[in-house]
């Protein structure tokens, strides 16, 4: 924990917006999850765990459509030009990896050493995402018409 009490979600929010902006040239807006539009499309859920000075996990949920958008932005190509061989979840894993690395130093400071495990990704059906959303406790954003969920769970 940092010496001064800081809200980890406020730090995470700032870091995520910065990474999305600087690496993918996209701008996220906060959204009240209760008022966010319904999602009826396949989603990806990405998790990354860290250990060392302390342990915990970050979780990111985003649509397959948004994975395609961030892949195109990262590669600097139009979405229609993304090669078929590209794993569309790779950019989502890297987005969470960069967010986690930046969050570690922004929240815990530059002294502590952490090891990040490679991010893991799985698909969620629209129904599974609806259930995740129902019990979700974290940050929610809209990028254009794409809903994104992001949470932080420290290990006790």
């Amino acid at each position, binding site marked *: 924990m940092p010496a001064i009490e800081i809200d980890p979600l406020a730090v995470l929010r700032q870091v995520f917006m910065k990474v999305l902006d600087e690496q993918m040239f996209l701008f996220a807006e906060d959204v009240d999850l209760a008022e966010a539009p319904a999602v009826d499309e396949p989603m990806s859920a990405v998790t990354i765990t860290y250990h060392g000075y302390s342990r915990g996990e970050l979780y990111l949920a985003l649509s397959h459509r948004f994975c395609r958008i961030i892949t195109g932005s990262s590669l600097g190509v139009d979405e229609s030009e993304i090669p078929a061989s590209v794993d569309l979840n*790779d950019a989502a894993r*890297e987005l969470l990896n960069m967010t986690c*690395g930046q969050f570690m130093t922004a929240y815990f400071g530059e002294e*502590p050493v952490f090891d990040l495990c*490679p991010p893991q990704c799985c698909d969620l059906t629209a129904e599974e995402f609806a259930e995740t959303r129902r019990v979700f406790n974290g940050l929610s954003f809209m990028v254009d018409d794409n809903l994104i969920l992001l949470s932080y769970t420290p290990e006790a």
Partner: protein
Amino acid sequence: MAYNIVIVDDSATVRAVLKKTLHLSGVAVGVLKEANNGREALEILRDGWFDLVFTDINMPEMNGIELINTLANDEVMSTIPIVVVSTDGSSSRIEEVKAKGVRAYVRKPFTPECIRDVINGVLIGDPNGDDGVIEIG
């Protein structure tokens, strides 16, 4: 002179971004190889001469620290300049890799200009570029 470069990162997206940045930087690139992790990178590096290695730290199978240690202990490969490109921003980690001879440390997310400056500093010795052990990002 064209430089032979190896990019080591478990993210194909990051490798693609680095590749594109290298081409945009104006540096003459000869052979450009990609590796998913440190083990794959070692196979490539043992198979030819390379002028520069870009490596991530957190990777499966063999991570960047293990790769840096292996290269540092190899009589021939210890002379290859290494640039770390990682999300890890811990000052202890940066000091650790500096002590092992890493020439530059670029933090993700990075801009094409960062990579260009590092290349100019490490490979070309541009007085306006970065050289020596540098930290960016």
